């Protein structure tokens, strides 16, 4: 072994770098698209909105003020920025943040670095729900709702079954997850079989590939609230997740009620995963690999790992989504791209000299 300790950035530095990267990616994402927006125009548009907000607040307090900025940009650009690009940028960031945080949390809870957000069937449940809704000819809102509901139902079923498993609790949950997940996967295959090959089957296939295309402001509110409900506890409980990685008996003797904490973490992770998958389809890979990259950056302590994972996940998915909608004339589903971009990079990391896994 060449070095005794892996090179890690001090936590504060790492967070600042990740924040800067995230902001840079957000700015670039705003600029790129069919109607490009220059940085100056972007600044102008945002400032004009800010000015309008300040003016209305001052009016509210009875101050007569009017602060306006004469537009030097096309109206169409402003429209595109606020009604199409901004919801999508925020959604990409939220989904990346959620999937990565859920992956990191599951890895800790199951004491297994190979765990990913779909380990308990959240994704296969969502896929089944979405496929079913498409088969029934329901609208896009209901497709999202079905995906979300079936995602939660699947994991609920897994937890219910695991309550009755004998022996090691963690193993019981994982095995129940694999079984229930495979049930829903074959149910989805069956739906594909009976779906109308002219329009339903392509719609299902496209949904399964994962895409943030067509994200609307209404989706955003739903996703934001649901994800906040899950992400805030994951952030707050981040130190205690460390203790869970020691196993149930050790955690209990240290003073942590392992069973209860694990259930809370699973519920929160499932909630954010379900919300992500239901609005974006299947985006694999992120939840497994981003936590690992973050471990490389700041170490395994969840106190630092959780925030770093959240920031890195948001920046990564946003960057990949920007590529997915700008690389070719037709959009490439992001679920395909995440692996294409991420896997080679990850392979480079694990084979690099002087690293040990």
């Amino acid at each position: 072994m060449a070095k005794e300790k892996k090179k890690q950035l001090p936590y504060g530095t790492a967070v600042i770098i990740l924040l800067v990267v995230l902001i840079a990616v957000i700015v670039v994402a705003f600029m790129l698209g069919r109607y490009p927006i220059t940085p100056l125009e972007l600044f102008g548009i945002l400032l004009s909105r800010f000015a309008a907000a300040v003016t209305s607040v001052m009016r509210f307090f009875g101050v007569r003020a009017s602060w306006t900025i004469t537009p030097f940009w096309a109206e169409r650009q402003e429209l595109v920025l606020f009604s199409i690009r901004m919801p999508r940028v925020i959604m990409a960031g939220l989904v990346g943040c959620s999937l990565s945080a859920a992956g990191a949390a599951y890895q800790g809870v199951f004491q297994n670095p190979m765990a990913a957000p779909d380990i308990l069937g959240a994704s296969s449940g969502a896929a089944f729900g979405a496929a079913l809704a498409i088969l029934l000819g329901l609208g896009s809102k209901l497709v999202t709702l079905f995906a979300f509901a079936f995602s939660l139902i699947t994991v609920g079923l897994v937890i219910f079954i695991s309550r009755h498993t004998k022996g090691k609790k963690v193993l019981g949950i994982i095995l129940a997850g694999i079984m229930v997940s495979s049930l829903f996967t074959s149910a989805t295959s069956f739906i594909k079989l009976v779906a109308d090959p002219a329009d339903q089957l392509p719609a299902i296939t496209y949904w399964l590939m994962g895409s943030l295309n067509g994200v609307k402001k209404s989706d955003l509110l739903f996703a934001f609230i649901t994800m906040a409900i899950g992400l805030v506890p994951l952030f707050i409980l981040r130190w205690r997740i460390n203790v869970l990685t020691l196993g149930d008996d050790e955690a209990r003797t240290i003073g942590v009620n392992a069973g209860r904490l694990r259930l809370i973490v699973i519920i929160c992770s499932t909630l954010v995963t379900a919300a992500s998958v239901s609005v974006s389809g299947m985006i694999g890979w992120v939840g497994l690999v981003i936590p690992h990259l973050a471990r490389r950056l700041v170490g395994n302590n969840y106190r630092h790992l959780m925030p770093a994972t959240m920031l890195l996940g948001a920046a990564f998915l946003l960057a990949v989504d920007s590529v997915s909608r700008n690389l070719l004339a037709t959009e490439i589903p992001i679920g395909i791209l995440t692996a294409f971009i991420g896997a080679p990079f990850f392979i480079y990391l694990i084979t690099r000299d002087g690293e040990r896994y």
Partner: protein
Amino acid sequence: MSIETKDIRFAYGEHEVLRGVSFEAEPGQLVALLGPNGVGKSTLFKCMLGLLKNYSGDTLINGKSVKKMPAADLAKEVAYIPQWHYPSFNFSVIDMVLMGTTSQISRSSVPGREQIETAEQALEKMNILHLRDKGYTQISGGEQQLVLVSRALAQKARILIMDEPSSNLDFGNQFRIMKQIKDLAADGYTVIESLHNPDQAYMYADRLIAMKGGMIVADGKPSETMDADLIEKLYGVEVKVHSLRHDRIRICVPNNLNID
């Protein structure tokens, strides 16, 4: 801080593991628990630590039943030092020890300056403060065991329960860790540890409890309890017990070297 078990009986299904175990340990006492594999030493520890609850009988800490104590309260009284095992994730030594302070902070917070000081003092006491920022998987097995003891000290519990602390350690480290544990007992900790090796139990323990068939078959000073009869009863091996250094050391040597 005294810990007392009262007639603990426990069965895994049909299989009776513990059949009425009662004893009481006092501060300053290093109690060694001897017995063959599968005699129920680990199960007894689980009962005492509140990890198993559906047993008959009770464990009392200063008169309070362990069964009724929430995990966080129990952690302030009793710490557990598990048998060596490979961790799922490589934490730094200081983080590993800091985990012991979890019951001292609120559910929603992270360890602060005070907890870090506690953890550093614990490392200092075990003479491994220099390992502070090393990765747990990058230090030796003996050092890892000391880190786990430090974690128990950072937990600020006065009763320490150890599951075979010297297993998996090389010859030298076995003696080093036993010496540290002995010093902790001298400082007023109540230490209960299960041991493989009767010679070690004799050398370090103040008291020896021997278990066989789910029951205590001997309990007393090592010099009064450890003899060839007990060893044969426990392990089914005929031995001769040799006494060295004015009986400060006793070594069990099998009579028949072709044991079948």
